[in-house]
């Protein structure tokens, strides 16, 4: 069969068999007991030409519905953001995307240096010294962080905040359950989202490996006394883990300065499209403390030199990893999200310190503006938490079922947000909504106007 993806011609196949003294390829499969062979080959389809496949995929995709950019206000783990054109342009270079994990550093300096730069740029953002070359996403990074905390401290319990992403929590539970780590919730103030210090102090003890905080919280507010949580953790010999949406870090204090020992987070906002939820970029880093670094999962790239003394980059501390340590490894992770990390390196290089601060301002301004506008509508309580929000916030519509509001907004061509009342019963019929630099002021005004119409109906 001649196919563009198969290298051998019919003639070459014949020549090769001849050279090997075989009369057919079947001879090479004779060691497999014949009863295992399929009687009929898989017939799901004939090979389709490039054009046929393009048509097929485009036709299926036409069943998706993309609204105007400014009409999508959903966050909750993946967020609409601007991705500068050159990010994808550069990722499409075949030398990058068609390469494997850089096992041969001498021919892989490009990926290695780009990943080193990702680690370094992310370390600047987070204000820690060490960031690994990526995890699958925030949720899995969180699960790994909890496991790491147990290995570092030898303790078994993790304290997590009430307003945590339910999806991340579920992943963390799946990850930690086999190693018998106990996850326990601590309270947050329902009025302003502050960490309930009394509750935290009551729950912390000699058995706690780590205290975890989300920054901003899943519901978009900043827990203002976050630093105190870290102090309490440290007073009791526990680690302090901060989970972060990095887009806040141009404006808000860094996890490093807030006392984090381990930082996890989601890198998707930094140069990756939403892609129906994946690929994402799991951020994971820690302080430069040998006790921590030796327990850090995932690949690490380091700067070093050649034997002759030129600068070079290579994978380091591989002795933590599965291919050396096997069942004693810090994690099983092998293939990670390298190309996504490179996207983020490109993105952060483009923005730089001023651009990154501006990004934060753009988002903060829109969040505040949208909350202010919504709160002026009769019957709308926005935001539910009386404190600072970034990118996301919750609101409630008096006397109206939240899923109904979302449905009616959709009829007006707006994806208004997601219902979070089922996760946080005390919040009732509440909607989590999200605004970023993709929305113009008119987009937000349009949202507000539409919600008003929905209420008046």
């Amino acid at each position, binding site marked *: 069969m001649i*196919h563009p993806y198969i290298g051998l011609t019919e003639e070459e196949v014949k020549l090769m068999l001849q050279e090997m003294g075989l009369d057919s390829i079947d001879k090479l499969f004779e*060691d497999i007991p014949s009863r295992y062979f399929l009687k009929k080959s898989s017939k799901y389809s004939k090979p389709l030409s490039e054009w046929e496949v393009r048509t097929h*995929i485009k036709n299926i995709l036409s*069943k998706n519905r993309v609204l105007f950019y400014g009409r999508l206000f959903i966050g909750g783990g993946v967020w609409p953001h601007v991705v500068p054109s050159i990010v994808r342009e550069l990722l499409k270079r075949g030398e990058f*995307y068609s390469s494997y994990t850089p096992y041969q550093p001498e021919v892989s300096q490009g990926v290695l240096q780009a990943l080193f730069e990702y680690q370094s740029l992310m370390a600047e953002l987070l204000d820690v010294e060490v960031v690994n070359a990526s995890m699958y996403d925030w949720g899995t990074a969180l699960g790994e962080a909890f496991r790491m905390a147990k290995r570092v401290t030898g303790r078994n319990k993790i304290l997590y905040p009430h307003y945590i992403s339910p999806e991340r929590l579920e992943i963390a539970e799946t990850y930690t359950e086999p190693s018998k780590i106990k996850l326990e919730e601590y309270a947050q103030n329902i009025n302003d989202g502050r960490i309930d210090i009394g509750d935290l102090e009551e729950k912390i003890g000699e058995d706690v490996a780590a205290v975890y905080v989300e920054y901003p919280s899943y519901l978009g507010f900043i827990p203002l006394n976050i630093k105190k949580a870290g102090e309490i953790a440290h007073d009791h010999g526990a680690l302090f883990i901060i989970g972060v949406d990095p887009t806040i870090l141009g404006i808000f204090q860094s996890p490093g300065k807030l006392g984090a020992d381990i930082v996890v987070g989601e890198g998707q906002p930094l140069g990756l499209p939403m892609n129906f939820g994946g690929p994402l970029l799991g951020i994971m880093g820690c302080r430069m403390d040998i006790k921590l670094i030796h327990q850090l999962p995932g690949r690490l790239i380091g700067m*070093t030199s050649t034997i002759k003394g030129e600068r070079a980059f290579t994978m380091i501390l591989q002795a933590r990893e599965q291919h050396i340590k096997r069942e004693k490894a810090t994690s099983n992770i092998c*293939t990670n999200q390298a190309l996504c990390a490179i996207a983020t390196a490109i993105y952060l290089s483009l923005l730089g310190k001023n651009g990154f601060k501006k990004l934060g301002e753009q988002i903060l301004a829109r969040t505040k503006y949208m909350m202010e506008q919504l709160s002026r509508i009769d019957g709308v309580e926005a935001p539910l938490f009386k404190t600072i929000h970034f990118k996301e916030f919750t609101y409630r519509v008096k006397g109206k079922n939240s899923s109904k509001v979302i449905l009616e907004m959709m009829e007006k061509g707006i994806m208004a947000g997601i219902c979070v009342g089922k996760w946080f019963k005390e919040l009732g019929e509440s909607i989590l909504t999200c605004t970023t630099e993709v929305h113009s002021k008119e987009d937000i005004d349009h949202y507000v106007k539409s919600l008003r119409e929905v209420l008046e109906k």
Partner: protein
Amino acid sequence: MISNGYRQARWLEPTVFELSRSGAVGVDFPELDPELEKSLKNAFKEIPEDLKRNDLGLPELSELEVVRHFTRLSQMNYGVNSGMYPLGSCTMKYNPAISEELVDDERITYIHPLQPLETIQGCLEIMWRLEQILKEITGMARFSFQPAAGAHGEFLGCLIIRAYHRDKGMLHKNVMIVPDSAHGTNPASAAMAGYEVRVVKSDKDGCVDIEMLEKIVDENVAGIMLTNPNTLGVFEKNIDKIVDIIHGVDGLLYYDGANLNALLGKVRPADMGFDIVHLNLHKTFSTPHGGGGPGSGPVGVVEKLVDYLPPPLVEYDEKEDIFYLDYNRPKSVGKIKMFYGNFSVLVKAYVYLLRIGGEGLVKVAETSVLASNYLLHKIRKLKGITLPYAPESPRKHEFVVSLSKLYKETGISAKDVAKRLLDYGYHAPTIYFPTIVEEAFMIEPTESESKKEIDNFYNVLSKIIEEAYEDPEKIKTAPHNTSVGRVDEFRASHPKTMIPSWRIYKTRERV
């Protein structure tokens, strides 16, 4: 041909930190409308001083500087698009360009995973259709697309085995059997899922030692993780016995699908008796490896294990002609990944499967196996190279030779030869894996390569072997034609000299 004149680009490319010019910008934002500006002021007023950030150490570059920087870096990187990449166990086949183009469609990139169902029918349909094909190829009943890579799939598989035994009241099952030839992720995944790992040795044919297996399998065994063909490229001919032994104690068989390429369209894991399988879409199904991800490692299971798959699964309601997500999975092991997995990678695998077709898969298996055996046929005659285990048995899509004779006779190691191959414009094979072979050289040409390319690879390798006997110094100091010379790996990981970030570099510089 032999020398193709390979010289990799040698930019003395500084890091982005060194390229920084104060005041340069690579991105601009719209000016804030006065009302937004006002809101921003209001917001700033509320932020307490100790929560404000004033020290952001990101570099400053123009857009063109960023483009050049990363273009230069890409030129110092080797991919399948640059040349033959016979990295065993990694199936570095061609990654079709059409896939890259199609996933840039905004009806993928600008779709949020939590949008209303009626707006994501296209995405769900692609997942559903891909699942139907993977079911057909493997014989499994259902798939979960959540795993982001092979190892992630293994972890999920182990969790499913655990959930199954708990459900059946077999709480004592706490041992996972793993062959000594297995990939490192297998034992690591089993341990992560709470299992004690028990290693079964390979016999003289490189297959699972059945006698030993019988001895070490007891009531506590939950299952076995197996690669077939195994990492030596040898088909586990006693698979029926292994199945009987493991099923005999109510254990389950896990199939590490990293090596499925050789069996595509010919033999299905389910028909061999496996209960769970993961596939590496970033190997077998041609989605790019991306320098280390993103990949995708979907997990398929037989009927009796479907209940344990993580939520949600994609379902199709024929009456309403609508695809939907089923979250109601009370027995599930729980979620292991945000949302539904690495979606755009799934699209690429689906595109590949349509392009190659059901018949094409058989050809992929056959030509990849032919290419590998042909290359082995030539290479095994080279001085200093031996073929350990079952010398009479054909290999599948990959093979492992030993360079230990060469090493003893010349002092040239597998690593040295690997480095010298780079000089000739080839990527090196996998070396020192599997660990049961000394000075292992694991070669997988894949179906993508032509006879001409395979022949030339052989010629280059044979020339290097000659060099090893005549001029070993040249090899020991290799590579010479790459962006940098041989890297000092020891210094890289030494606690005193280790530099994991620019920050650490700066502090070390100060000292």
